[in-house]
């Protein structure tokens, strides 16, 4: 594809429900990042995948958050038992490794927990 694709673009869910957010990175990009952008706050790192290496999960805010990346391509971020403070824009980025390269960002998924 031409860029990083995220779906859905908007998601409204009830407190306590589980949600899955999807990211399709640019083909051939082995590095994939998830960030969270909350109103009035900066961009918060969540998790990083690089090829077949163990992901860097150091940014996940609680054990309600998890992510996987299947086949080194598509990634899914899952939030269980959503809370109102989970409301934010969730951004995915991918990057080609093997040199100095920049990250390409998706348009994000706006999650609203009501």
């Amino acid at each position, binding site marked *: 594809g031409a860029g990083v694709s995220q779906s859905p673009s908007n998601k409204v869910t009830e407190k306590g429900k589980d949600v899955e957010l999807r990211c399709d990175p640019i083909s051939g990009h082995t590095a994939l990042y998830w960030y969270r952008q909350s109103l009035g706050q900066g961009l918060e790192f969540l998790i990083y995948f690089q090829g077949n290496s163990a992901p860097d999960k150091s940014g996940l805010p609680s054990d309600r958050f998890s992510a996987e990346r299947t086949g080194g391509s598509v990634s899914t971020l899952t939030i269980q038992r959503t809370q109102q403070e989970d409301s934010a824009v969730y951004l995915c980025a991918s990057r080609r490794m093997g040199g100095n390269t920049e*990250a390409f960002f998706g348009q994000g998924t706006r999650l609203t927990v009501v």
Partner: protein
Amino acid sequence: AQSVSQHNHHVILSEAASLELGCNYSYGGTVNLFWYVQYPGQHLQLLLKYFSGDPLVKGIKGFEAEFIKSKFSFNLRKPSVQWSDTAEYFCLTQGGSARQLTFGSGTQLTVLP
């Protein structure tokens, strides 16, 4: 841990004014440096990047940034802003063994017509 500071949270300028947005980072080793821009309703886009070489880098839309290693800074500049430059600007670093990209808190630029 790496950190990135953007001291200007909101900058308001008139068209044709000059712009300088500050960015300071904490990592002492080799870093890659980026400025990204997020126009209203759009995704983050790369403005410019620095990996090595000439510390003055030029990006799209007339933007430039200067890497000053001794000051741990990578300030963004534009000699004459336009109304269409209204957006949020983010400084990012990626350095050493840190695989993640570290964001600054962002600067909201408003250019008045």
